């Protein structure tokens, strides 16, 4: 589920991925999500142009929820388990 409207909720964690993209971005993203608790919110900044397509796809595949997206900023809620 995605929305372009920024959520008012403050993120639990922020990560500025800079220009990281493709496999490097999603692998590091996976590792960071694994350190978070279920339901926690990550605010990700990913400037790679591929992130526009990749972050929603990654969320669909992994089961995490994309709460808001306004490239380069994405808010992702960690899945329950």
């Amino acid at each position, binding site marked *: 589920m995605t929305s372009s409207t920024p959520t008012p909720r403050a993120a639990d964690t922020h990560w500025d991925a800079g220009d990281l993209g*493709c*496999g490097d971005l999603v692998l590091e993203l996976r590792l960071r999500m694994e350190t978070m608790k279920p339901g926690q919110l990550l605010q990700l900044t990913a400037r790679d*142009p*591929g992130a526009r397509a990749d972050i929603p796809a990654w969320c669909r*595949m992994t089961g995490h929820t994309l709460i808001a997206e306004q490239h380069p900023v994405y808010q992702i809620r960690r899945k329950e388990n």
Partner: protein
Amino acid sequence: MANRFCVSLTHAKDNQDKATVGFVVANAAAGSGKETLVFLSVEGVRLAQKGYADDIREEGFAPLRELMDNFAKAGGTIYVCSPCFKKRKLDENNLVAGAAIVGGAKLVEFLSEGSPCVSY
């Protein structure tokens, strides 16, 4: 039978034959009613720039520009490898119709949902 088809294309003017045949096969898939993706990576990303393919014409085939236009008109999708594109310092504001810059996750999603893939 899968309703999707992927063509992975890694060449441009470094191998015009492969670049052309990749789109010929992609058009065959699109023409057969398949949801068709062309994944451009390595040198192939240059094909995503408007005007680049205009002078590619392999004997025995339609001009590449025409093949790519027909692919877009048929609803085909072109994924352009983001790191390959950035490495070559190409212009993301000058993409051909149907092209989008993506990273690996988008390709993985497409293939994981069930799709054969042929590489050129």
